[in-house]
């Protein structure tokens, strides 16, 4: 009797529908005219930095494509905490190249390593400036050809600033999440938040200059989509 009950239970479970984790995808667009970017002229005045440049590079606060595609928007699931897998996640690389940070907008999980490289032939100081208690500020020298520097942050924090004070036009902004559910929009404005468990969520899109937009979604087997349009202010 007991054996038959066990098989009956197994058969029932086998035929129950099982919900799988799925992706949230979307596109970010920008409506309006962004402010004009500025030439980073000091880079051309610095003999250590102007190598490889024929003209001054531009700031890139608004990475807007021809059809309004908006890159560098940090998209995440609002209110998800305590789910970080940062300790086992692959490190994220932040390079210093041509006296600029590459990329300038990035995101990591709490405990996930950020590896800072110096691909330049000049010295940089890597100065991060967290504002949330529990995240430690540091200011380290990185000589040309010097060893990579590694940083981790314990607490979630939006747009934690990395800067080089030797070259005061160099900045990068790292958003730290307490979960793996985030993405950054690419040059086509597209993003994908991977492996989201089924359920209802608030998707939050944050642009450093344009602020925050949110949208409610329900993730099912086929995933979900959420698109956002930022408008010029």
């Amino acid at each position, binding site marked *: 009797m007991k054996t038959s009950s066990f098989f009956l239970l197994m058969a029932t479970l086998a035929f129950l529908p099982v919900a799988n984790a799925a992706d949230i995808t979307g596109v970010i667009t920008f409506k309006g005219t962004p402010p004009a970017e500025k030439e980073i002229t000091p880079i051309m005045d610095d003999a250590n930095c102007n190598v490889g440049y024929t003209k001054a590079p531009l*700031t890139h606060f608004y990475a807007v494509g021809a059809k309004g595609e908006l890159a560098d928007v940090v998209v995440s699931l609002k209110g998800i905490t305590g789910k970080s897998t940062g300790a086992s996640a692959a490190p994220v690389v932040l390079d210093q190249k041509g006296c600029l940070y590459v990329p300038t907008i990035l995101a990591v999980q709490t405990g996930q390593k950020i590896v800072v490289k110096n691909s330049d032939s000049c010295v940089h100081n890597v100065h991060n400036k967290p504002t949330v208690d529990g995240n430690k500020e540091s200011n380290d020298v990185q000589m040309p050809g010097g060893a990579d520097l590694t940083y981790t942050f314990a607490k979630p924090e939006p747009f934690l600033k990395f800067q080089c004070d030797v070259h005061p036009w160099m900045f990068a902004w790292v958003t730290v999440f307490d979960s793996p559910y985030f993405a950054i929009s690419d040059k086509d404005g597209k993003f994908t938040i991977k492996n989201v468990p089924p359920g209802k969520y608030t998707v939050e899109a944050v642009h450093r200059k344009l602020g925050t937009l949110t949208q409610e979604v329900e993730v099912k087997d086929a995933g979900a989509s959420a698109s956002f349009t930022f408008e010029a202010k």
Partner: protein
Amino acid sequence: MSKTAPNKSNPWLFRFAILTAFVTFLLIGLGGLVTSHGAGMSVPDWPNTYGYNMFTFPISKWVGGIFYEHTHRLLASAVGLLTTVLAVWLWLADTRKWMHWLGLAALLGVIAQGILGGLRVTMRMDSLGVFHATIAQLFFILICAMTLFTSRFWIELAGGKRAFFVSRSLRTLVLATTFLIFAQLIIAATMRHQHAGLAIADFPLAYGKIWPATNPTAVASYNARRVSVTEEAPVTAFQIKLQMAHRVVALAIFILVAACAWQAWRRLGGKDSLAKLAIFWLALMFAQIALGAWTIWSNKAADVATLHVMVGALSLVTGALWCIIGFGRSAASLPDAQTSGVFGVQTSMLANK
């Protein structure tokens, strides 16, 4: 030299004090350049520089922001040395005991200022920069006052030769204006050390209005439109209000200094040294307001902003010296001043010249 012996002006001591004051003024300018270039943290260690002894750091490595921060440290060391020599010289050669203590105060001040500057780097605290900048102004006043006290002008003044009563109301007006300038410099240091760039990018209007909106929507809109090469932190409503306060206080200072100059001219006559100093003060105000406007119109160009800092320091020290001379001269004009001595200078000192 006996400490009770009559004092006489020592031209070389006076010249050395002028040198110390001048190098201190340059140091304030170089400190201004460090902040204007956002280079305060470009040398992460202290008292060493990138692991080197500060004085052996190779010139080839003085690049980018390091140049400003490192030369600031070297010039600060020079001011420390000059102040030490000045303090020792005063202790040995000046008969006025209070001058010994002023020298010692200057020495302790420059040491404290150096340590504060170092802690601002090692503790990575922007707020310490405000204190560092403020103490720099006070130290500059102290060195300039010591320079004045070592001058022949002061010896003669204290001896009654230049004694001339300056009305209490005029002295009070100048003193109050000087305090207001000091308050203004604290506001300015607070603005600069928040590293938020220009909180308001237009002048004479502010975001197109006489008084800008500071609600969250308006501030978000201002930040969205800000594009800056040096990528400052977003501005806050507090920073906007602080810059508006800076503008309002600037206007008040200008009116007060104009009133001081007018009153000094009217009451003391155009040939009087204090009247001339007050006119110079007013000229500084014109320059300072022009530089303030230019700082905004140039999107806070580092050299322009630094000139604004330097003229601000000169304005403060001019007011302070006017007060010292005005109060000293009035005290020397009192009937019993010649026998009791003013600021420790006896009339008999003049007999030595």
